[in-house]
């Protein structure tokens, strides 16, 4: 890995960490703790397009582990881990469909992110009850996905994209 790429990864991981801290202040409309809006997916999507899948995965791991350490909350780890991985898998798949823009990829990723969080809650609780919140969370994902898609389209805008992708 080149130094420039390593630096980029570190900056992006720090940015993702900051985003997941910020979104902790906006709880989702479900009575389950630790659920995140998925703003850190901006970084995952940006990293996917500019650096490729392996660095994006590394950034995700660093963000999830450091985030759990700072929050001092091990139970939140499984949410961000499952949510983040589901989002990344779906976005890797969707980004290969060239008819989709960053918006479509981002909305799909947000939906997967929330489904992953619900799955994590079901696993932690050993109960199907959290599935009740999935429909609402999918609707939320359309809006949060559009937002992250918009931010990503700005970041990937020509000048920036050339600067980072070199």
């Amino acid at each position, binding site marked *: 890995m080149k130094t420039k790429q390593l630096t980029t990864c570190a900056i992006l991981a720090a940015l993702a960490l900051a985003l997941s801290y910020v979104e902790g202040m906006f709880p989702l409309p479900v009575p389950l703790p630790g659920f995140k809006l998925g703003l850190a997916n901006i970084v995952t999507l940006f990293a996917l397009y500019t650096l490729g899948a392996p660095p994006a995965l590394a950034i995700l791991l660093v963000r999830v582990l450091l985030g759990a350490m700072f929050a001092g909350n091990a139970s939140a780890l499984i949410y961000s881990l499952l949510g983040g991985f589901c989002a990344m898998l779906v976005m890797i798949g969707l980004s290969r469909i060239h008819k989709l823009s960053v918006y479509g990829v981002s909305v799909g990723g947000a939906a997967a992110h929330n489904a992953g969080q619900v799955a994590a809650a079901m696993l932690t609780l050993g109960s199907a*009850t959290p599935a009740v919140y999935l429909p609402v969370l999918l609707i939320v994902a*359309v809006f949060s*996905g559009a937002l992250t898609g918009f931010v990503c389209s700005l970041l990937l805008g020509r000048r920036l994209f050339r600067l980072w992708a070199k």
Partner: protein
Amino acid sequence: MSGSPKLVPTKYDALVVLIVLALAVALGARYWFAPAREAAEIIVSIGGVEAERLTFDDSEYDYTNNGYTVHVTVRAGSVRVDHADCPTQDCVRTGAISRPGQSIVCLPARIILTIEGAAAPDYDAIAG
């Protein structure tokens, strides 16, 4: 990874949005369009196992699991967690619930209170 990505929404993006919304409606239909039922019982699930069924009479209960205790107050037609010593306090903030299908979750204690309606559909069916 794939060269310069499209930055302006396409009609195929709308398709992704439609699929997500269709999924939400398909999954939510059973809750949103279910006929109104009368609240009949409160199911107390501890650690993923149904532990007790409560009826709606004025009474209070303490449940302890995972090192945390939640204090449950039942009134005619509603149930709430008054106080708990869990760190997140989401169970307390949920407030009182009264409709079938509603639930209060305490994640740290792994305790769930769910209101079941008269002749309620089984909620396990959704998870397969």
